[in-house]
């Protein structure tokens, strides 16, 4: 049996050829720090100078002192001391400059990363829910974290260091030319060879690393899948089969690595041989120069030193190219996110905030999440100030959508929703949402304290107000039961709390902002009867005198509301009080009967 290739996230293109527009746009992020960038480049220039100075001091020491037989020994020694002192100064200066340069470059890189991350994150906050529905969480996270990290490499070790490598290379070439033009030119004959060798090596290694990466991704994807699906593997006695597949992928991965090992094993000796050729050229041609007294021993020694410094900048330069390519791919993805226009925005001149006075009005509203799949059809409904309205209906009847539209998380396609006669689209969505206290079906809790989850970090709300809200919502008692009360840290997604408790927390959260309009999308899951009672009690207190829209899954919740709206397949089918609807004997009556039956079933099933 052939076992299909495991899933590899192939939407993530890893590299892309150099794109100047993207690159220019990236460089723009350096602009606020251009002073530091220029300083860093300046330091690099100093560093290259110092690096070239070292062998030159050696040359002077040899020629003027060590090999200068014409001078008196004591004089030579004292000169030697002077050169050594000078050399020490150069070393110290180099130490300080190199350190300073490194810190400076990284700091700039980090600041740019900071700016970019803030920009992406802030931009994400403006995008509409439609965008979040379309893009998986993992992908969006990669934009803020992984992709930005890739750019970090570009800014810290890429852009600026390129100058360093070029300066160093140029400096060495210049120094050699100054010492002896002919010998320099002879030694330079190895340069093209180095360029070609590193070029070939870089391409090969890049390709084989790409292989390594994709194969490792496959291997790990398979491993992960096998771990998650271990029960199935056991059940179908597929241990041996999946091992064979794993071993095959593992072998593929090993082979890709062995190729890389091979390239490295070839590259290092090749570089050494080229280095030896350079040394040989210096011995041969330079030695002849010494014989004919056109070259000093010091210069010969300096040449030998310079020749060993050739290789690093050349290899680094070619690696920069890889960095650049990865950065292109990441920046393209980042910019495409930043270029996504927020869909739901307030008008140019939003109307000033007015307290809610009259009514919410759904006027012939139709809505579809996608194309023509109408979820709501021609809905007209008016909720007066202070009225308590419940939405009832089977799953998929459009209840939640109505609430989503009211908060303007989506815009209606037909008709309009108005608040005191003003179209929602003419308001600032933030102003609109501030009027509403929402409790969602799946209570989302942030990691952090209970306090943070109620006040949501809003310090304008006092702790007393928070506790008051929790008391009304019947949450205070169970919060106080934690040894650290409101400071109690909730586990991931509040996993330590029961569904009911989460619901009560959500009530507190909605209440604490003292909303004009209360929206509740009741949880579907089962809640123990004791907590259910607490919820019921809290709800009655919350709803008193407050305009509210309640989506109820348990009809017992809503028997006292002013009006019940029965939705079916996106249309309003029935409307009236509990008693009226029961008398009508329609859809509501049936739903109600069903509920009575389920209530008998104390244990409950998910039917």
């Amino acid at each position, binding site marked *: 049996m052939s076992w299909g290739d495991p899933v590899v996230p192939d939407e993530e293109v890893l590299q892309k050829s150099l794109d100047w527009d993207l690159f220019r746009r990236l460089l723009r992020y350096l602009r606020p720090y251009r002073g530091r960038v220029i300083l860093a480049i300046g330091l690099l220039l100093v560093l290259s100078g110092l690096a070239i100075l070292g062998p030159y001091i050696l040359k002077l*020491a040899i020629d003027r002192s060590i090999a200068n037989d014409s001078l008196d020994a004591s004089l030579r020694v004292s000169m*030697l001391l002077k050169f050594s002192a000078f050399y020490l100064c150069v070393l110290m200066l180099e130490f300080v400059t190199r350190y300073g340069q490194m810190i400076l470059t990284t700091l700039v890189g980090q600041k740019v990363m900071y700016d970019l991350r803030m920009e992406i*994150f802030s931009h994400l906050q403006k995008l509409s829910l439609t965008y979040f529905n379309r893009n998986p969480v993992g992908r969006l996270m990669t934009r803020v974290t992984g992709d930005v990290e890739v750019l970090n490499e570009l800014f810290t070790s890429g852009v600026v260091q390129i100058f360093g490598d070029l300066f160093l290379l140029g400096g060495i070439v210049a120094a050699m030319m100054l010492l002896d033009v002919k010998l320099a030119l002879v030694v330079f004959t190895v340069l093209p060879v180095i360029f070609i060798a590193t070029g070939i090596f870089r391409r090969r290694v890049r390709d084989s690393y790409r292989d390594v990466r994709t194969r490792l991704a496959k291997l790990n994807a398979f491993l992960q899948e*096998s771990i998650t699906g271990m029960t199935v593997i056991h059940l*179908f006695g597929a241990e041996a089969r999946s091992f064979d597949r794993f071993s095959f992928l593992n072998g593929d991965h*090993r082979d890709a690595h062995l190729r890389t090992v091979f390239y490295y094993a070839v590259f290092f000796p090749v570089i050494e041989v080229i280095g*030896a050729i350079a*040394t040989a050229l210096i011995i041969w041609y330079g030695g002849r120069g010494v014989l004919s007294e056109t070259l000093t021993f010091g210069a010969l020694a300096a040449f030998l030193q310079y020749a060993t410094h050739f290789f690093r900048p050349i290899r680094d330069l070619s690696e920069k190219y890889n960095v650049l390519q990865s950065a292109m791919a990441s920046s393209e993805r980042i910019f495409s996110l930043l270029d996504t226009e927020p869909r739901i925005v307030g008008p140019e001149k939003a109307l000033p905030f007015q307290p809610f006075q009259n009514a919410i009005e759904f006027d012939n509203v139709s809505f579809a999440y996608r194309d023509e799949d109408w979820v709501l059809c021609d809905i007209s409904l008016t909720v007066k100030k202070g009225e308590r309205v419940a939405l009832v209906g*089977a799953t998929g009847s459009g209840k939640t959508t109505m609430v989503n539209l009211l*908060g303007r998380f989506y815009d209606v396609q037909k008709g309009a929703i108005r608040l005191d006669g003003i179209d929602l689209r003419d308001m600032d969505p933030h102003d609109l949402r501030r009027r509403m206290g929402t409790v969602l079906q799946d209570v989302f809790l942030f990691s952090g304290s209970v306090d943070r989850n109620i006040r949501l970090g809003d310090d304008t709300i006092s702790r007393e107000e928070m506790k008051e809200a929790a008391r009304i919502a019947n949450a205070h008692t169970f919060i106080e039961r934690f040894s650290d009360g409101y400071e109690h840290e909730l586990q991931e997604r509040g996993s330590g709390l029961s569904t009911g408790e989460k619901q009560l927390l959500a009530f507190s959260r909605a209440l604490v902002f003292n909303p004009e309009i209360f929206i509740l999308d009741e949880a579907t899951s089962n809640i123990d009867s004791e907590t259910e009672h607490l919820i019921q009690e809290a709800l009655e207190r919350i709803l008193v005198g407050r305009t509210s829209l309640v989506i109820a899954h348990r009809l017992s919740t809503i028997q006292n509301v002013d009006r019940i709206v029965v939705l079916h397949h996106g249309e309003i089918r029935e409307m009236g009080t509990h008693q009226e609807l029961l008398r009508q004997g329609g859809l509501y009556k049936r739903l109600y009967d069903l509920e009575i039956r389920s209530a008998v079933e104390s244990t409950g099933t998910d039917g």
Partner: protein
Amino acid sequence: MRELLRLRPYLARYKGSFAIGIVHVFLTNVFTLISPLILMRAIDELRDGALTRPLWVYASIVVVLALIQGVFRFMMRKVMIGASRKIEFDLRNDLFSHLGSLSVAYFDRTRTGEIMARATNDLNAVRMFVGPAIMYVANTFFTLVIGLTLMLRLDWQLTLLALLPFPLLSLGVKMLGSRLHDLFQAIQEQYATITTHVQENITGIRVVKAFVREEEQIEGFRVLNREFIERNMSMVRLWGLFFPIMGLLTGIAMLIVMGFGGFRVVSGNLTLGGFVAFTSYLGMLTWPAIAIGWVINLIERGAASMKRISEILDEEPDITAPEIAEAPPIRGGLRLDDVSFAYNGEPVLEEIDLTVGEGETVAIVGAIGSGKSTLLRLVPRLYDVSRGEILIDGVPLRSLSLSHLRSAIGFVPQETFLFSMTVKENIRFGDPSLSDEQLEEICRLSRLTPDLDKFPEGWDTVVGERGVLLSGGQKQRIAIARALARNPRILILDDSLSSVDVNTEEAILVGLREYRRGRTTLIVSHRLSAVRDADRIVVLEEGRITERGIHRELIRNGGFYSRLYERQKLIRELEDLE
């Protein structure tokens, strides 16, 4: 360090490679370290103005030495690093194979991410020990021994003085290395925190927007982001020292050679050639000195990682069975004899007595958490009973080999898990030897055929993120097909039709009715339509059997079953309303 002993059998397997590798390390060093002596000779003769050989001869010797050295160096890397990749391969295979032998309970209590971390990061750390660490230990050893011998012969006083900074270099790298490792961990942690914040923000975006908390979220992110930069910078403040210190220490060694070595030349104790050779040797010794510090860190990390990997390898499989090659075919009669099962100390099933005759169909009904699924999972021994015994054809499960037992069972789990391979491969997971005709028959039985036509590449369509996203019902039907592919004596359906619409469910059940004939079948379902035709129905409540009988008897009972029945009748009516 003791953890690393565990690698002995792996190292032993490649001892030939390591032996060859070490010989090559030695030879590489010999030829590398001879080279400066040639340079010395040439310069001394030049200085004395008495060349014994033409200059090109010296030049050629340098190149030839480099070539010979290059071949050995190539072999050294290829053989030793290559062996480390092979050991990584072996170790990873062993890890996977061991994981396969562990029971479901192990995977229940161990997070996937943890296992993945062992198989990736830790394995890599061990690989770094087996490969580069061992190679560089050998290399450093030979470089120091040969290099020092040669240098000491040239001028022992200069040698001792010039090498003074080198121990500092090793020590510095070692200390910086472990401190950097800690700082790096701190950065990784902060990175994880940022990731979590972003994830939380995106998953909770609805709440963020509903309560207009965007600003607060951005502020929170800003704090984390700033801390991230801080941590990065504190690492860079240290890491930034690395190269400058290296440069400084090697520079000081060079300074000593220049100053003191120059003095020795002036005072006639060293030739100019020897002086130049010394400068070359310094360059050659720099990397091994750095490597000492680096390698110590590699060994420490390798040991820590090996310890974590050993935790998995030492995990004993808790479900074991005798390996019996020959066994009579399983016919499918089942008996649960006073079976109790507790999970993490919580009783799940208590005193279950149940006999399912060969070819009989028994349905199990009950509320969520009543123990239905657990009961089913005991049959293929995904878990073992805590008390009592399960017998198959009168033989205790524990006396059968696992493969024999499981080969007789077609199990459709509650949570459908498909592998990301083609539909066909997923079905054939049940039996790889299945012919296309048999496959078609199975697809027909599980009502997959109409869906296959809709898939872009029929049953060669890849399932999952990279391929088609299937509906819950489609997934379940593939899982059913996969179980049928085993041609099982015992068919187990654990709420396997919950996502399938009512009509398809009906069709599958009708189709299976014929198929089930002669096969023992256990069905768990929340829909009574799926269980009403069973030969016997068992109601589980809180881990105990509270009702048993056939449909007609149970609806008259007035118990759990009859209430469930009434409720479902109503739902059915509601659904038919349109």
